[in-house]
């Protein structure tokens, strides 16, 4: 029995270090290769030893697919390919290929230079790893080998994020990566055609959320920032360098421009400039508005947003600062936060999800006193606001995507177990499909019934098509032909051709049947009576009376003879070939009923 096997190495009932193994039609594919934000030990990377204990990974994996450039989807890539060892192809989209190394390098710097970790991948390893990457375009079907093909779909979420369809023969799996079903200020919405995969692996970060209208959120956000700035307060918005940051920048930039505001907006870290450059380049990946107006003005060329310097944080007067990282767990955003936390005029806006254990999570949960390193206690007086700008699909969006793709099975990853449970129930109820949510290391096996393609000759198809009258979807159609199986190759041909190909002579198969008829008249007269009876009953068929006294209906022959013993009984000999079985049996049953008396 063919089957599809899925094993999450990461992101199974969890958010972080996405890494899912899929075996489909004898091919092994690894989807994403991420790191986990919450851990600093070995647990931060997926356990690749699951794939093989000894021996090179290349022998076990046909390809690796990276959905987008977030570190929880690509962070372990250099480790995996260079340190564990993998030489096969790595597929990702063009923007991902461009931005991914910047983020990896940044990640490496923090880990090695700041935290002083040893045994971490080096810059050279990142470069080597990127050399193995094959970039794909949207909707381009890439043949990995003769049987395995992959295809990317637009996923929204971040620049270059894609969903991938993995197909072997007639079996297919769609992996969504992270996606967003509502468009935002810089990206469009995810879209997939009705590809009806056997399995849809979808993220479920917001499994229990149905978000308000995006516009309410934007309005709230702008209002809060505007008010704080007018009050003279400073606004801190912790973001990750890429993704949300750009959306919020565009939002604030256009607002500033429309309202003619003067308060400065800063964006921290040099990484952004490089990334912004890519955003300007990959215009085709952005939303309708930016695509349409970039000729006049590229929306990513900000007028009001300037680079941040550490000294600016102490400047008097209102300002808005975007600082990394987004969960306030380290770096510049945390530094600024410590400086500003004491003033109630100031405000921090958390625009996205915060992993448990980070400062962001703590203040969002309402903690007002934070214990910092060195036993310091930081009192948080500033306003803390949360606004979900995460570009993940909400429950309704997930349902929408499932509806669009019409999969046979759904598998949830990248979410919390409890919430998944809820969504799983909804999906099963709504679409009547099986839904799975394996934990890390747990394997889901799906039996599949792959369809076997059979070739049919055009002549046969046309001939059979022409016989039926009207198309009727409700009734199956009967097709006469011969199935030839030759070297794992199936063909349906007409019987004549089959005979010819196989060099066989045709055998005639004839059925004959005697029908006793009580009729004292002569044979000829009986035949005539039969003829006129059949003629009146079978209007659509060609009924003929031959000179030798026999009657033919199409190719069926009917002969009348006197019974040897009883002259009052006539024997009708009905003979038909195998092909005319239907008509022949009908005729005999008709004749068995006897002839009408009135006829002469």
């Amino acid at each position: 029995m063919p089957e599809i096997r899925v094993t999450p190495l990461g992101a199974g009932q969890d958010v972080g270090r996405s890494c899912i193994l899929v075996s489909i039609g004898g091919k092994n594919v690894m989807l994403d290769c991420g790191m986990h934000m919450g851990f600093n030990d070995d647990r931060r990377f997926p356990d690749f030893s699951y794939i093989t204990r000894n021996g090179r990974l290349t022998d076990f994996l046909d390809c690796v697919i990276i959905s987008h450039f977030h570190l929880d989807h690509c962070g372990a890539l250099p480790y995996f390919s260079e340190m564990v060892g993998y030489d096969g192809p790595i597929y990702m989209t063009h923007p991902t290929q461009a931005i991914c190394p910047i983020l990896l390098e940044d990640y490496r710097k923090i880990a090695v230079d700041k935290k002083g970790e040893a045994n971490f991948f080096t810059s050279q390893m990142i470069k080597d790893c990127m050399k193995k990457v094959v970039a794909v375009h949207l909707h381009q079907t890439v043949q990995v080998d003769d049987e395995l093909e992959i295809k990317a779909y637009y996923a929204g979420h971040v620049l270059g994020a894609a969903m991938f369809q993995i197909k072997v023969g007639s079996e297919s799996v769609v992996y969504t990566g992270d996606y967003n079903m509502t468009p935002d200020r810089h990206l469009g919405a995810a879209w997939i055609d009705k590809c009806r995969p056997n399995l849809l692996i979808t993220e479920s970060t917001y499994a229990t959320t149905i978000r308000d209208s995006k516009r309410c959120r934007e309005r709230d956000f702008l209002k809060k920032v505007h008010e704080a700035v007018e009050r003279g307060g400073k606004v801190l918005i912790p973001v990750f360098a890429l993704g949300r940051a750009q959306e919020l920048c565009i939002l604030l930039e256009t607002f500033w421009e429309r309202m003619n505001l003067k308060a400065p907006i800063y964006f921290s870290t040099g990484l952004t400039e490089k990334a912004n450059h890519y955003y300007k380049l990959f215009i085709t990946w952005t939303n309708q508005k930016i695509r349409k107006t970039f000729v006049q003005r590229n929306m990513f060329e900000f007028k009001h947003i300037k680079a941040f310097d550490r000294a600016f944080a102490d400047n008097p007067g209102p300002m808005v600062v975007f600082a990394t990282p987004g969960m306030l767990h380290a770096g510049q955003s945390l530094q600024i936060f410590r400086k500003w936390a004491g003033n109630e005029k100031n405000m921090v806006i958390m625009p996205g999800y915060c992993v448990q254990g980070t400062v962001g999570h703590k203040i969002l949960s309402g903690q007002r006193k934070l214990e910092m390193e060195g036993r310091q206690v930081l009192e948080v007086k500033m306003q803390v606001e949360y606004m979900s700008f995460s570009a993940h699909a909400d429950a309704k969006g997930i349902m929408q995507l499932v509806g669009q793709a019409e999969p046979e099975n759904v598998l949830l990853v990248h979410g919390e177990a409890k919430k998944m449970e809820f969504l799983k129930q909804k999906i099963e109820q709504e679409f009547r499909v099986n839904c799975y949510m394996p934990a890390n290391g747990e394997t889901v096996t799906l039996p599949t019934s792959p369809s076997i393609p059979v070739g049919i000759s055009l002549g046969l198809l046309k001939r059979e098509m022409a016989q039926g009258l009207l198309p009727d979807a409700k009734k199956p159609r009967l097709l006469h032909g011969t199935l030839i199986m030759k070297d794992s190759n199936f063909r349906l041909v007409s019987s004549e051709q089959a005979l010819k190909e196989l060099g066989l002579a045709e055998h005639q198969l004839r059925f004959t049947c005697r029908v006793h008829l009580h009729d004292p008249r002569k044979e000829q007269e009986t035949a005539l009576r039969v003829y006129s009876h059949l003629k009146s009953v079978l209007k659509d068929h060609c009924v003929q009376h031959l000179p030798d006294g026999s009657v033919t209906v199409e190719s069926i022959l009917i002969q009348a003879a006197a019974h040897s013993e009883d002259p009052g009984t006539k024997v009708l000999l009905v003979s038909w070939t195998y092909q005319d079985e239907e008509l022949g049996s009908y005729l005999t049953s008709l004749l068995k009923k006897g002839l009408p008396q009135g006829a002469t």
Partner: protein
Amino acid sequence: MAAHLKKRVYEEFTKVVQENDPSVRLKIASLLGLLSKTAGFSPDCIMDDAINILQNEKSHQVLAQLLDTLLAIGTKLPENQAIQNRLVDVACKHLTDTSHGVRNKCLQLLGNLGSLEKSVTKDGEGLAVRDVQKIIGDYFSDQDPRVRTAAIKAMLQLHERGLKLHQTIYNQACKLLSDDYEQVRSAAVQLIWVVSQLYPESIVPIPSSNEEIRLVDDAFGKICHMVSDGSWVVRVQAAKLLGSMEQVSSHFLEQTLDKKLMSDLRRKRTAHERAKELYSSGEFSSGRKWGDDAPKEEIDTGAVNLIESGACGAFVHGLEDEMYEVRIAAVEALCMLAQSSPSFAEKCLDFLVDMFNDEIEEVRLQSIHTMRKISNNITLREDQLDTVLAVLEDSSRDIREALHELLCCTNVSTKEGIHLALVELLKNLTKYPTDRDSIWKCLKFLGSRHPTLVLPLVPELLSTHPFFDTAEPDMDDPAYIAVLVLIFNAAKTCPTMPALFSDHTFRHYAYLRDSLSHLVPALRLPGRKLVSSTLSANITPHEDPSHQFLQQSLERVYSLQHLDPQGAQELLELTIRDLQRLGELQSELAGVADFSATYLRCQLLLIKALQEKLWNVAAPLYLKQSDLASAAAKQIMEETYKMEFMYSGVENKQVVIIHHMRLQAKALQLIVTARTTRGVDPLFGMCEKFLQEVDFFQRCFIADLPHLQDSFVDKLLDLMPRLMTSKPVEVVKIVQTMLRQSTFLHLPLPEQIHKASATIIEPAGESDNPLRFTSGLVVALDVDATLEHVQDPQNTVKVQVLYPDGQAQMIHPKPADFRNPGPGRHRLITQVYLSHTAWTEPCQVEVRLLLAYNSNSRLPKSPWVEGGEVSPQVETSVIEGTIPFSKSVKVYIMPKPARR
């Protein structure tokens, strides 16, 4: 005319039909179709042949084309039932063809020609009864998506032709909503909409439950679901159609705005309230608060389902769609639904206000317009007003002006709201001083709508103090004028307000009442005499004395015929003067008064011209006097063109009279020239032309001729046979006597008539700094003008630039430069390019607006042009003449010589 010729052509074609190359046959078939579309060709003769060819044809493409030809034939003969039936039979026969193209055409033919009446085929065998709908319906499940689409389209075509579709189609169409192909889904949405409009009240069962709902509600839910379809074409279609489903129940309607309310269709009666509780308790988090998405206790799985289907949040989705086309469609639909349901209007307000922040300007503009349209149903809360007013800072002029329009008809609930609006508008004024007029107008309406809310604000706004005199504000400050406009308009219906004014306010009132009378109403102020307000206080418009006066003045003119020329002239002059004055005083009657006055002026000119001495003196002496008469003729012509094209609301009966007057002017011209020129040759042509004109007149207004008893043309037509044969000199003589004898035709007054007018706002013509540019290059001049009562301005309004050297240039503005802010009003914002050779001094050019006309556009087209290939645009865009209809504005320019 050339039917026999065409028949001949057709015979030639049939010879070639035996052609072997299918592409040649294809072309012939298509030519046959074109041929049968031309006028004067009776296509029934080729039908039999076409059908015969059809039977032997093998190529699918040719078959399809032949069916197309048959369709053309069938549509040409709509009355002939037998032919229609025959064609339908042919189509049915070919429905089983293997090619999608042929099936498509067959379905199209069925849709266009098939009738619902069950037609019995004559020959006794086979199925006798044909139900076109059933046949088309069978192809809803064809294997080819193009055929499926064609089947739905055919069904829609049947509906358009007025056949009532069966309700059974509804279920079939619903299945097609989940088709794989977008064009099928798009057409299916339309079909569902059609059926829902046909059978709104019938009850349909809900699958998998034993409950039933109204069909229109069910359809609404289904179309709402399509708003989140994968294809944006379908989304646009669905969003558009939602707007016209007014019969839908209100609770379904309101669900469209609530994403969270997952009330299921299946058990709405039982689960509705429960579902509501569920969501107020928050099964799903909203994403606004942190940590509210922790799952609550297990819920009964049966209670909540169907996140996907149903009307829930359709508009929420539509309004935040990726494609702005969908968003605009959603806003429009929202507008239409809100207009029919006040409670829905109230609910959708928040969403509309949110759309004011859309990233695409068009969408913002559309939502502001929508808000204006529904504004009589709603009252803005303060926080909503706040968001609305924030848009005033938008840098786009269109948006700001649309918003001013919106504020004109908005209801505000509190005095803080009024204050807020005023403050924001003043802010807007300082930021964009060009918005001055629009803001004043906006405040005028704001004041007159909310007098009681303005009252408590007056002391603050005028910064008066109970004890101290405050400084007198600057009278020329636009902001101060804005405040005064608000207050004075509020004071109109609030008599207690003037008591709060200080002395200088009264003085300013008097000044503004004179200088900005359209913004400042007449107030009843203590100690001031107000003529107009006391007079017109309690008169119903019906017995409006000014209207009576107008009628009387016009009736007086009836007696014109019985007066001697001198008396007639005096009477006309008097009446014209009266009418003009009336028009100035009563703006609502200005159109009628002007129109009538113009007509009377024409008559006056005609009488005057006929009184000239020149008719009596001998030929050699009249050379000089003829100037006056020919000038009169020319002027009458001009005036008649103005009457015909500058007024909106002119009906056919007026047009006849106007044309009649013009004909008289032409006659005058003819006889004047006849007298002043020597020799017969030029006269010959003129006479012929004139007679053509008369003939033309007769053809165009044949229906109205009975109303023209005793008129010039009536008499002229009587003598027409004689005129045709007469010599030019005689013709002139006859015409002359006719003209003298002709009676004055009474001009019936149209119901609603408005004179087209235009005001150029920009350039203002005040600048002393010349626009400098290098000669030979161009300079762009921004022109901004408001047009009132102009019909079809895109084609008629032109900009003219007159250079000092007499050179005139006419510029055709782009259609996109015209905006339509309200009924009868247009706004032209365009750029005019100026260029000239170098000048030594700066000098002024004149810019004005022209109304282009073409009197032929009214007339029926001559029959031989009809079927031809002449595109209608070419014809109408020919400009016969122009009428200036705005004051000209002077612009100071200075083309400098180019530097070498």
